[in-house]
């Protein structure tokens, strides 16, 4: 008989060890899955986890993709994690990401074809404000009318997608693009370009911003009173009120910060890897970032690692489809296993497993 027994305090050792254990378990279960599909499991695991970084032929292409993909995930997830810790559920980061990209691109394109050095900083600010404004809508409705921020922020994603479509085919369309949908290419206009900073690494300003956000998030959550209040409000709302935390202020702050960071991620994406406002600009980073935030245990360093791991399985998964002919569904199942094990073994940090006979008397 196996029983779970709640620990008096969460175990620190297990909190650190569970992600590693989860990855190992995923490799074992995934290996069995791949073996059943007739693929050499060791080769498949190596293709997913190792080849994207170290394969002599493909690594030069896939290695930079790691940071390109992880950057926006981390940047968005850091913002989301603060709200999640406080029990404020911003599910609409995808919409804020899109609105940040549109606002930033529009602010820049208004000055096209100027070569001023001020244009890019202006676009960054506009991007952050665009995302912030989109997140403040659910914050305002929740504090004023007690609407549910989960629903409002989620539904605003679909509004943002329609605004994106109208911008791509209408008011932001490239006047020199012979009528094709999509804005001017921002990556090719020197004033608005967000280039790869160090060749062959995939490092661009968005990745820099993500690293800064990790440090910022770490300091706020572990050293600042705001971080303390966020955790308090999430864990014990009544104690937070007793301690003098204003719940409405926290809602506006947390939604505002997560929206602003999502907007920044969108801006850096549209000026760099994506290059232009197009109908299919929204690629799901805002939703995947929710998973990244939880995989990282809502902790900034954890999110950094989770973002990299998530990006790796995406890139490695594509590589495995392409090199080993594994079906896309098998790769998705594999990624699902990773999530399953990561969340499943988390129980060990709060509970201990007792194995033994039940009857004592």
């Amino acid at each position: 008989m196996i029983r779970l027994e709640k620990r008096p305090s969460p175990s620190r050792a297990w909190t650190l060890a569970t992600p590693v254990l989860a990855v190992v378990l995923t490799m074992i279960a995934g290996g069995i899955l791949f073996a059943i599909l007739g693929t050499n499991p060791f080769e498949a695991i190596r293709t997913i986890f190792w080849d994207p970084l170290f394969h002599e032929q493909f690594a030069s292409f896939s290695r930079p993709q790691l940071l390109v993909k992880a950057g926006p995930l981390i940047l968005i997830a850091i913002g989301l994690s603060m709200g999640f810790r406080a029990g404020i559920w911003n599910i609409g980061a995808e919409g804020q990401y899109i609105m940040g990209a549109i606002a930033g691109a529009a602010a820049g394109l208004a000055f096209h074809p100027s070569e001023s050095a001020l244009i890019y900083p202006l676009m960054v600010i506009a991007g952050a404000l665009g995302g912030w404004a989109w997140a403040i809508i659910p914050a305002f409705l929740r504090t004023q009318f007690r609407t549910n921020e989960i629903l409002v922020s989620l539904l605003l994603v679909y509004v943002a997608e329609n605004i994106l479509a109208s911008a791509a085919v209408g008011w932001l369309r490239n006047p020199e693009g012979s009528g094709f949908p999509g804005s001017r290419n921002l990556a090719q206009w020197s004033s608005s370009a967000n280039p790869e900073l160090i060749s062959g690494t995939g490092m661009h300003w968005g990745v820099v911003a993500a690293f800064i956000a990790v440090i910022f998030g770490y300091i706020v959550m572990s050293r600042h009173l705001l971080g303390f209040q966020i955790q308090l409000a999430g864990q014990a709302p009544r104690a937070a009120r007793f301690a003098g935390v204003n719940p409405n202020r926290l809602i506006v702050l947390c939604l505002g910060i997560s929206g602003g960071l999502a907007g920044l991620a969108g801006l850096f994406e549209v000026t760099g890897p994506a290059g232009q406002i197009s109908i299919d600009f929204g690629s799901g980073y805002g939703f995947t970032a929710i998973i990244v935030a939880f995989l990282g245990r809502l902790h900034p360093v954890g999110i950094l690692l989770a973002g990299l791991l998530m990006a790796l399985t995406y890139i490695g998964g594509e590589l495995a489809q392409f090199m080993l002919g594994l079906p896309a569904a098998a790769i998705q199942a594999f990624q699902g296993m990773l999530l399953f094990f990561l969340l499943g073994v988390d129980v060990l940090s709060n509970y201990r497993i007792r194995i033994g006979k039940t009857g004592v008397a």
Partner: protein
Amino acid sequence: MSDLLHVDGLTKAYPGVVANDAVSFSVAEGEVHALLGENGAGKSTLVKMIYGLVKPDRGTMTLRGEAYAPSEPRVARSSGVAMVFQHFSLFEALSVAENITLGMEDPPRPRALSHRIREVSHAYGLPLDPDRLVGELSAGERQRVEIIRCLLQDPKLLIMDEPTSVLTPQEVDILFTTLRKLSAEGTAILYISHKLEEIRSLCEAATILRLGKVVATCVPKEKSARELAEMMVGQTLHQPKAAGTQPGETVLTIESLTLPSETPFGTSLQNVSLELRRGEILGIGGVAGNGQDELLAALSGERLVPSDAILFGTAEIGATGPTERRRMGILSAPEERLGHAAAPDMSLTENGVLTATVRRGLANRGFVNWAKAKDFAEEVIRDFDVRTPGPGNAARSLSGGNLQKFVIGREVLQQPEVLVVNQPTWGVDASAAADIRQSLMDLAAQGAGVIVISQDLDELMEVADRFCALNGGRLTASRPTQGLTVDQIGLMLGGAHDMETAHV
């Protein structure tokens, strides 16, 4: 009398602490048996093992001579063991009968059940209307629901965990009459309490636990309350004594405060006025649920009121938030320790930051000084004898009494001008309670104004200079505690609900 329940060598260890260490004792048929001990002595663990909620690591139990090892409460109930918990498990929005149905294995038809409830409740002098909503009942009446629920199962052994902590003196009398009648009919009662006088008047035998071990068994009637307490704590009790200082100028005033309840089953404050002077302790009595939580929320600043309804000296502070009030020196300690006064999963250091940031300078420009915060938590642990391995431990890992010492100590060490505490010694053992009361009196002697909200009348008589009572959200005028009799207090409290004694 023959043994009903015999417990032999029960041992239960939790990580870091042995809650019960080879505990053995017996309860005879029809006996009222007391289980006495400090907080953390292992009483709760012991009864949980008897009720099948916790499984012992070692040891055996026999019930009426047969081996007894309940794997879950259902098994315990079918063997004739029932338990009334300290915290009620009732649904406020359901009726009495519906609540009782929920706890039964195969409930009878509603009409038959209602009839049974009326019958049993009258037979035992605990009148109860099966159709009333639990949300409308007083704490005492809610307890009756729990007791009736047990009695319908016809138990051989009834376990009661601190049953009188929520009752008025009159309600306590009714309960005792009921328990004596049950005992006379052959039902054994295992009675947990820290109120020594109650145990002396009610119980025929007592088992005393200290640090998980049985240290003594005795007949409580043959011992004085002081002797019992000393056996329990293993040291000589420190009796607090009123310092008798002259009250100074008025430090806190409430003027005609009316505050609607936030929840449908809460109590609205109605036209509450009081005046608190420096150097005095004002005791506010009353049965729980009569507006105590609301009054504390209004004073702590959790609920804001019109600014002229509360005065600090001459400053209007009704609309001032908790942080600003703390800066002024108005501190408070709510009744609910876990989740209100303290965050369960946070460490003691973090729980120190929860209220002491402003007055102890634990933050600099918004950044928490964790080293200083840890020092503060260690200071509270040391000065108030909080038993814990260290300030890094989570609040929920502490026993109730130890956490209460931490919560009170955290506020007292901030040197408040005004301190408001709700149920400061609820569930706290005798020696810790004496320490807490002493610290409150010391605080008043140093010139602070202290408001103690409590249901424990002995406590209020012991510490308070003036006494008033909350009843249905209204506050009576205050009277000096000198010369007040228990009967007068009972009348101030609004008396018992549906007073009636058992038809023996």
